[in-house]
């Protein structure tokens, strides 16, 4: 089971290539918001950048708050997303302690599914897909739902 991590964010130059890759490849959107990883400046550009990303909680508060099973617990941490079950209630976003879930203007939630597609688009190697061990069957299911 793999998890996306951001171990070298000090290297980030703020190009947003990771967010744009997630939007483009996973969600088929042009956006730096409707993406599983989002880059923000931490108080002006002179203080560097932070990545807003799912920390792969286990148990994940977002899954516990989801009333329909659209968000369910991913083995090893994080969430398996089944968009068809989502009723746009926004409780996942409210439950996430690290602001990793983004709601678009319709209330559709976007969160990292730890697929790692963004990693190759980081020019400074800030991101890493870390192997946490265990089966990756559910992860693939999550990707399938998203794409």
């Amino acid at each position, binding site marked *: 089971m793999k998890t996306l991590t951001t171990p070298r964010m000090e290297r980030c*130059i703020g*190009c947003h290539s990771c967010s744009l890759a997630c939007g483009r490849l996973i969600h088929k*959107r*042009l*956006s730096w918001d409707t993406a599983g990883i989002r880059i923000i*400046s931490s108080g002006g550009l002179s203080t560097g950048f932070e990545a807003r990303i799912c920390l792969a909680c286990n148990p994940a508060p977002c899954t516990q708050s989801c009333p329909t099973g659209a968000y369910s617990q991913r083995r090893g941490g994080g969430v398996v997303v089944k968009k068809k079950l989502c009723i746009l209630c926004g409780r996942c976003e409210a439950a996430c302690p690290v602001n990793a879930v983004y709601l678009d203007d319709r209330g559709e939630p976007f969160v990292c599914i730890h697929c790692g597609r963004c990693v190759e688009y980081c020019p400074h190697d800030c991101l890493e897909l870390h192997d946490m061990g265990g089966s990756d069957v559910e992860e693939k299911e999550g990707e399938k739902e998203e794409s």
Partner: protein
Amino acid sequence: MIRDHFRILKLDLLSKKGDVVSVGGRDDFCGGSGLAALLFQKYGRIDRTWNDPDQPLIFAIGPLTGYFPLMSKTVCAFKSPYHDQYAESHAGGRSALSLRFTGYDALVIVGRAEKPSVVTFGSRHLEIKDVQYLWGLDLHSTGKMLRRMFTGAGHRSILRIGPAGENCSAMACINVDTYRHFGRLGPGAAMGAKNLKAIVIIGDGSFALPEGKAYSKVFKDVYNQVTTTDMMHKYHNLGTPANVATLNKIKAMPYRNLQKTSDETIYDMTGEQFADKTLLRNMACAGCPVGCIHVGFVREKFMEPNQYLYRQVSYDHEPNFAVGSMLGVTDPFSILSLIDVTEKTGLDVMSAGVAIAWATEAFEKGLIKEDKTIIELKFGDAKAYVRALNYLGTAANDFYRLLGQGTLKAAQQYGGQDFACILGQEMAGYATGEVFFVSQALGLRHSHLDAGGYAYDQKPIEKDETKAVDFLVKDEEERILLTSMVSCLFAREVYKPQLLADCLISLGYTGLANSMTEIAGRIQSLRWRLRRSTGFDPATVTIPKRFTEVVTFKGPVDLDYLNSLKDAYSKRILELAKQD
């Protein structure tokens, strides 16, 4: 999002109302430079002065903005306070992507706000706020306040002016996200004249991409070219200061108001020296994985014992040359301090440095004295220059106010026109020879980026004014195509016509892809028509004597060649301006 027309937000600062306007012409004018010119043609008041409240201030992006790497620039068009004619300036930062994500292709601002104001807009909101409390604040303080006042950190762009813009200096820039600028020909004054302190663009929209895999495939190809080949290495590595050592070696590096074109001390300010001593980190414009923005630091001991403050300052070849070698200052930390103080006032660093270089020589020659300059000006005296640049930015007295309107204007009053380093506006940092001097003096933006005259000079090519002018016109046309997409010009080796066509087709812009050359030519003509109709006459452009005294690696400047080039290029510009 991918549409056959332009969607424009037109905003009237007086009525505080916006209008969403649909403008045709996508397949004829593309976007960026083309769209900005089209909108100036539609909304500009060519018979009124630059500061007429009805003059538009335009920001335009292009069909590829945000969709591909390095499609990360915004084109600003306005009537310039510098020459009261049509002008264009380009900047990156997060401006282009933020504007893209608002869902508009351009922002057009007309009218003059009754009170100092900030405009903020996104995909679903528009607001004009009174901000009298920000008027008079320097650029850094303004940025801090605005970041606190508005949401969207990281996914917004803040365009702001400093005191120089407020007092309508013709050298006032619009600062973009702290480290980038709409720098030249006074766009900051165009904002100041509108009582507009800042524009906060919130990029909060999200748009569907074309079906199929073609787009992602072309994207990956472009991304690999810019990140895994050597094409962008220079910009990523040392950045534009990488040029300095070479320019000094070939005697093309302006030094002490262009009294010389090389000096041993210039090796103190090479790209390597800046990187080794001052570089903190690289940064990028949004949508560009290259990261050419180089941020250095200066620290200052403000109190004993050992109490320091530090500042982060972005550097590039152009500002480095202007407040560095041009002023005889070659210590990197001193140069960064001078850039910082200039930035704080909201002045364009290039223009300001070259203007103060003229003032220094005028002071040394006794044409102006301390009753005008307030302090003694001396080449190499960085401490004095910190004060002088601040005086210039804040228009501290009549002399500095006049100098802020352009070096030639001050020289006309005080003398010293022969050594005013003006090529349409204050010179860029290349003393490469005849082709560059003519290119900047007559170029539409009076920028080294109008065409590659500086590179042409460095090639072993015979002196043939027809061939040189052919090159300038063709190169300008090719660059216009890029700045209508809108690409960063650093990517010009990547975005060759076939790749541009592939990008356009992958998004469904087949019409644009099939007629790029015609479109570029059409935009080139329109821009020159606008420039001409607002008063530009190439016959009145002079190249001051100082440029004719330059000695480069090729020897002394050839005055006959310079004049014949100027005549030939003037003629071609007039022909371009006549084409419809």
